[in-house]
């Protein structure tokens, strides 16, 4: 609502690329964007030699103020832009970004907690930005991450989540793997249905003040509805869905 200049397209340079899971790569960028809020995204624009352009939106994984902007990109088999990132992009390459964007699926220090983060697949990306920000500004804030992944190796940022949990007593992590048996005591290996969520929330024993749910449309539809049935007021549940439905 502020009168001012439009968000301009900026050049982003790839500094390094890290594999996170068999299907997801992280791109660490240098880009002259304004400081973002945890949970925001950027628009990405690629331009072919003949001027043809394609745009997509990607959530930011890095914490506000981090020196490098991190995007985590999942390879979609029928995609147009993600195959570029997975097969062609190299350090030193450039593309354009615009942002940061989004004023709802964000968490700020003053929002407080307890926080409940629920992510499926690459839906963990904006939740990691929130968790990294929380780790630096509110490491004692009661927080529960519930992560759903196909397999243990598909669990995005697995080692970082587990390290946060080891380091910070108030940061709890529960994982469900939907295509292989669970690995840790207390974890699950089924979909996050009503009973699974009731069990996990009961063991956590906190009433979340802010809930962030991100993942595929069917995942978010199901989880968000289940959470409202666990007496969490809908207005405390922020959602971000990706991909299609019928």
């Amino acid at each position, binding site marked *: 609502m502020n009168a001012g200049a439009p968000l301009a397209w900026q050049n982003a340079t790839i500094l390094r690329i890290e594999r996170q899971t068999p299907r997801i790569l992280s791109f660490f960028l240098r880009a002259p964007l304004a400081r973002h809020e945890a949970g925001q995204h950027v628009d990405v624009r690629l331009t072919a030699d003949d001027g043809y352009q394609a745009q997509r939106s990607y959530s930011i994984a890095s914490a506000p103020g981090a020196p490098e902007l991190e995007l985590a990109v999942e390879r979609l088999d029928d995609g147009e832009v993600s195959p570029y990132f997975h097969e062609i992009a190299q350090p030193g390459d450039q593309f354009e970004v615009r942002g940061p964007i989004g004023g*709802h699926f964000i968490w700020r220090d003053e929002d407080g907690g307890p926080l409940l983060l629920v992510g499926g697949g690459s839906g963990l990306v904006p939740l990691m930005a929130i968790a990294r920000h929380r780790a630096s500004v509110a490491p004692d804030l009661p927080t529960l991450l519930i992560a759903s992944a196909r397999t243990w190796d598909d669990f995005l940022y697995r080692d970082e989540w587990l390290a946060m949990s080891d380091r910070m007593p108030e940061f709890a992590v529960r994982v469900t793997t939907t295509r292989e048996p669970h690995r840790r005591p207390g974890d699950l290996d089924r979909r996050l249905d009503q009973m699974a969520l009731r069990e996990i929330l009961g063991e956590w024993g906190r009433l979340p003040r802010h809930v962030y749910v991100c993942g595929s449309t069917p995942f978010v539809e199901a989880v968000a509805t289940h959470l409202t049935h666990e007496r969490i007021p*809908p207005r405390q549940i922020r959602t971000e869905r990706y991909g299609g*439905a019928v």
Partner: protein
Amino acid sequence: MATRGFSGRRPGANVAGRLPPGQSQTNDFPVLAFGPTPEVDLATWRFTLKHGPRPLAQWTWDEFMGLPQTKWRGDIHCVTKWSKFDTDWEGVTIDDLFAAAGVAPPTAYLLAESFDGYDTNVPVADLVGGKAMIATQYANAPLAAEHGGPARLLVPHLYFWKSAKWVRGLRFTARDEAGFWELRGYHMYGDPWREQRYTNDP
């Protein structure tokens, strides 16, 4: 600036001509909403026209379904970059709604208001003249809850966040008041052909 090695997948000319700048065609139907899908009960559903806080007219579900029903087929464009072609909708045009209420628009702006607390602003001129409806059917079936059922606003010539899901009324406002996304970084008007995505886009 060209992106080294990016060739892309150009749509054919027939598709490209229908895509506003920065959009890609999708064949499925993505779902966007700021929170959980609300459960809306048709027995208590009401649709209300208001001028500020003052109600001008109200319909129950059965009364609403008794209003003239109009079909529309065309393309829709979401600010998250997807466009979907040849979508089929049915509902009550805003013209027919105003006529049934016996009201002439008292102001030039309104906010569409939803059961989940969402709202979005649209100029009245963009809703009348056959340009918009309250849709209750999609693809010849009752509109699914995740797509805004039982009823959503349909303003297909603007980005689709203006087509408020789970709509429960229209409230005329004296000025052009920002709604939910318009207060959170998105454009006040949202014309996809001018790529008015974010607040200060020209």
